[in-house]
């Protein structure tokens, strides 16, 4: 029995053409004004790269991210040349070129330059006995134990004995006992030793490679300039300097190179990649969709009308996105290109009716209102499931697509029924013999194929890094003997002083097991530890161990210094500029990190696990585990959602129809996963997320077939929708970001299968 097409009378259907247009126009103008106001407020914050799109909630991971921010504004450029002097001179030219840049906080090649040294001397010089070099401390302890002055005077004389030492000569005025000089020398040079290959040659801080000598340029970027636009500017500036330099040197035929590393460069490269994909996918999708519209209607008016629907969808989506989110992820736009395919569907449903009937705008509106509303509700419901994930990128996609579709829906209902054109156009209709066997075979195939599915949500497989930057990082890492991004152990405590003591103890224990690491406790001691150091100097003074040293100093110089000595106030933020390690307050606790040069060994990991409030951080692993968790959780969210959809469909079309209407989308998405597995070594969360969308889109097809019957007209409309959606999603499978390409591929396959099964599965013979 053929069902009568379902129509409805509603407020929109009673609107006059003029009123409809005015309402649509007001919506568009309002959105434009809001968008203008939003853009004029401040620089919109954008971010790129998949890691930035994920949220991770545990306190230790949040601490690790916060402490790792110190690395986000740092860049290391290595200027390599056969001749050290040429490298030095090029590095100097580059520093001069970058000197005036608004984003630049600091730039230098020698980490021990006079200005930095002076800043350290003035901080520590306020109480020079608070901090002791370990070797000096051992000598002071030895002097007391052996009741000899020699270890104390040896330290003083050894330092003075050198031909020239900037640390000694600059710190002498603050501390003539050279306690401060010993401390600074040990700490500053310890930073450039260990496994590191940094050295001084011809008085330049440098690295020696197999063929070239390298002069470093250490760059710090102002925190206010870490946004996407400035990152891209910085990246382009450095690339341009690099290419200018390469050109000059190719002409001069000398062997040289410039290497660059820094997290900000990855963000910039990811941003440029995303921008390129947004524009290329956008253009291809738009041209493809326009071609389909033109073929379907062979007239300019429906083409313009469809573009108005798409434009309005993009506009409303963008307004919602800028109003809801402070920082927008560029990958959201890549995912959101799919809106073109779905938005144009709404236009097709109205325009096809317009094309094939001479009915009034009101009749057309009545006819499409219910299926369009159900399609809108189910698509938004499907996308809304993304809110259950901790992936903010997907939340942004939901907002953009959800609101965008409302814009498309309103445009399709308000504007399109009033369009007039007479061309027949090409038919995309297909009316094969429908039989339930097809769905049965597809179901069996899907069930059989599920066993071959192999999932791997490792974040490394989902994200891409610019290959050229990765290669440079590997080279820099091999040259410096240090990892570009250190391994992190986070330590916490409610009290800052206790945290420093705990950190110092763990750092010492790990070093005893061979770890090479950076720790804030090398530069910031708790007040009690500082007082112990002062007491040690005082004890030596009282034992007259400073006798030889005193003969060179002004009368009572040491006595005066000891009287004034008191523990220094902590200033981790100041020290973080030099060491890269800071203390952050998160969740009412203080957190710091030990930065390890290598992956901790089994014993070192055990040591960390045994230490109170200490955690070894493996952020990629934590994120991957979280994604796996989300993927399994989706099933628990999708099941109740499917039941709700089944109930809604049952109310309109009867239970039996509803079951088949739901089975087709479920089988399509399941088979899409099975077929995706043939193209991918492993599936991931984004393939699964694509299934949610396949279900919502496929339900639309089923609703149209069920509501209006399996007619050529509906086949034509559904085919147009499917082709346009498959085109816009399918193009995403060409993305260089595996997350996006996985999503696009499964959607392309799923939509194609849904289109096929919706045509092959009989619905009209099922009784309500």
């Amino acid at each position, binding site marked *: 029995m053929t069902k009568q097409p379902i129509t409805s009378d509603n407020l929109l259907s009673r609107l006059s053409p003029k009123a409809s247009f005015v309402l649509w126009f007001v919506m568009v103008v309002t959105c434009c004004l809001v968008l203008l106001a939003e853009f004029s407020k401040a620089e919109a914050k954008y971010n790129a790269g998949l890691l930035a799109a994920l949220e991770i909630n545990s306190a230790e991971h949040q601490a690790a991210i916060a402490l790792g921010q110190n690395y986000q504004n740092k860049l290391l450029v290595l200027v390599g040349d056969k001749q050290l002097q040429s490298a030095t001179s090029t590095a100097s030219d580059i520093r001069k070129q970058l000197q005036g840049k608004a984003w630049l906080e600091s730039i230098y090649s020698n980490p021990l*330059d006079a200005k930095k040294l002076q800043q350290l001397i003035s901080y520590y010089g306020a109480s020079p006995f608070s901090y002791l070099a370990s070797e000096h401390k051992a000598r002071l302890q030895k002097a007391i134990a052996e009741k000899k002055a020699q270890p104390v005077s040896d330290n003083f004389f050894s330092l*003075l004995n050198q031909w020239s030492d*900037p640390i000694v000569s600059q710190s*002498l005025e603050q501390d*003539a006992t050279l306690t401060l000089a010993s401390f600074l020398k040990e700490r500053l040079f310890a930073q450039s030793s260990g496994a590191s290959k940094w*050295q*001084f040659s011809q008085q330049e801080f440098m690295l020696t490679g197999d063929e070239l000598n390298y002069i470093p340029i250490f760059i710090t970027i102002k925190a206010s300039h870490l946004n996407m636009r400035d990152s891209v500017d910085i990246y382009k500036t450095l690339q341009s300097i690099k290419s200018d330099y390469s050109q000059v040197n190719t002409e001069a035929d000398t062997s040289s190179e410039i290497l660059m590393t820094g997290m900000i460069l990855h963000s910039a490269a990811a941003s440029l990649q995303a921008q390129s994909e947004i524009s290329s996918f956008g253009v291809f999708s738009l041209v493809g969709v326009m071609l389909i519209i033109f073929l379907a209607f062979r007239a300019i008016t429906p083409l313009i009308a469809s573009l108005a629907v798409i434009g309005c969808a993009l506009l409303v989506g963008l307004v919602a996105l800028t109003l809801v989110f402070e920082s927008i992820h560029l990958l959201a736009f890549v995912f959101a290109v799919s809106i073109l395919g779905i938005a144009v569907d709404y236009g097709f449903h109205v325009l096809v009716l317009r094309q094939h009937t001479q009915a009034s705008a009101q009749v057309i509106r009545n006819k499409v209102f219910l299926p369009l509303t159900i399609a809108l509700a189910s698509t938004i419901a499907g996308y809304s499931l993304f809110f259950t994930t901790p992936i903010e990128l997907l939340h942004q996609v939901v907002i953009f697509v959800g609101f965008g579709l409302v814009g498309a829906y309103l445009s399709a209902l308000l504007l399109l029924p009033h369009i007039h054109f007479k061309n027949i156009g090409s038919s995309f209709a297909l009316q094969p013999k429908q039989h339930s066997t097809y769905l049965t075979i597809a179901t069996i195939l899907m069930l059989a194929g599920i066993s071959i599915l192999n999932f791997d949500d490792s974040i490394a497989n989902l994200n891409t890094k610019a290959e050229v930057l990765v290669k440079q990082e590997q080279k820099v890492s091999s040259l410096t003997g240090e990892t570009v991004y250190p391994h992190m152990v986070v330590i916490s405590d409610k009290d800052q002083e206790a945290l420093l003591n705990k950190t110092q103890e763990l750092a010492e224990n790990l070093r005893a097991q061979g770890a090479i690491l950076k720790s804030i406790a090398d530069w910031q001691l708790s007040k009690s530890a500082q007082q112990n150091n002062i007491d040690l100097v005082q004890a030596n003074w009282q034992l007259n161990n400073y006798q*030889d040293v005193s003969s*060179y100093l002004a009368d009572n110089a040491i006595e005066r210094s000891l009287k004034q000595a008191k523990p220094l106030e902590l200033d981790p933020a100041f020290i973080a500029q030099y060491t890269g390690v800071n203390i952050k307050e998160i969740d009412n606790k203080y957190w710091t990190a030990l930065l390890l040069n290598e992956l901790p060994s089994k014993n070192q990991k055990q040591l960390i696990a045994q230490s109170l409030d200490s955690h070894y951080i493996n952020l990629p692993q934590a994120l991957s585990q979280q994604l796996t968790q989300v993927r399994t959780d989706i099933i628990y969210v999708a099941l109740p959602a499917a039941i709700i959809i089944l109930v809604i469909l049952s109310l309109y079309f009867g239970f039996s129809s509803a079951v088949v209407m739901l089975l087709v989308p479920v089988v399509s998405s399941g088979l899409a996963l099975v077929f995706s597995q043939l193209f991918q070594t492993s599936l991931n969360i984004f393939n699964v997320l694509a299934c949610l969308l396949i279900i919502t889109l496929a339900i639309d097809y089923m609703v149209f077939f069920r509501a209006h019957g399996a007619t050529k007209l509906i086949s034509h409309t559904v085919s147009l929708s499917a082709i346009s959606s498959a085109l816009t999603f399918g193009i995403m499978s060409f993305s260089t970001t595996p997350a996006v390409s996985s999503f696009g591929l499964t959607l392309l396959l799923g939509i194609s299968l849904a289109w096929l099964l919706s045509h092959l599965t009989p619905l009209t013979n099922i009784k309500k």
Partner: protein
Amino acid sequence: MNKTKTTLFNKLQLPIATLLFILLSLSSVAFNSHAESETKAQSNAEAIEPLKGTFLQSKNIKPLKRPFKSSGHFVYFPTKGLLWQTEKPVKSVKLFANEGVYKVDQHGTLQKEAQLDNAFFLALFAGDEQKLAQFFITQPITNDDATLTCLALTPKSDTMKSLFAQIQLCTKAMNNNVKLPVTIALLEEKGNRTDINFQLSDTPLTAQELAYFD
């Protein structure tokens, strides 16, 4: 006129040819002798013996109420490096070798010191004007002793400027074409001054001292 010239040229042709021949012969002799001297220098370098001497260092630093004086021995092996042994007031041994600077601990073990630069120290000690010109603007200084060559070295790079305002170096040529510093004065921006005086000694080299250069 032309004819006269031609005649004159013809007349002078023989003496000119003779003169050219003599000049060429002389230059070939000169060339041979230069080549010979290079070969000699090479063989000298190969046969160069290490030099041992004493040093006296005096540091005048503003915050110190009296100059800091230290003394010790040095062994200079022109092709291999410099061994710097301070004896007073504190014992310490440093080796400035071609591969880097090493601190020699009490057990005789070498520990590389990444922060110290061998190239500059060796160039300074060798009085190698060509190498020193890479780092300094060099200017000769007049002095009373004709056997000494004295240079004022003003640093070129900012790094070097942060260490020294000027270095005054006086060297003396030894018998085997080797120069040895007699005095080095290191002048710093803040007015600090280090004077190092060198003197060759007859003390024989020990096997241990020589072993450092292997």
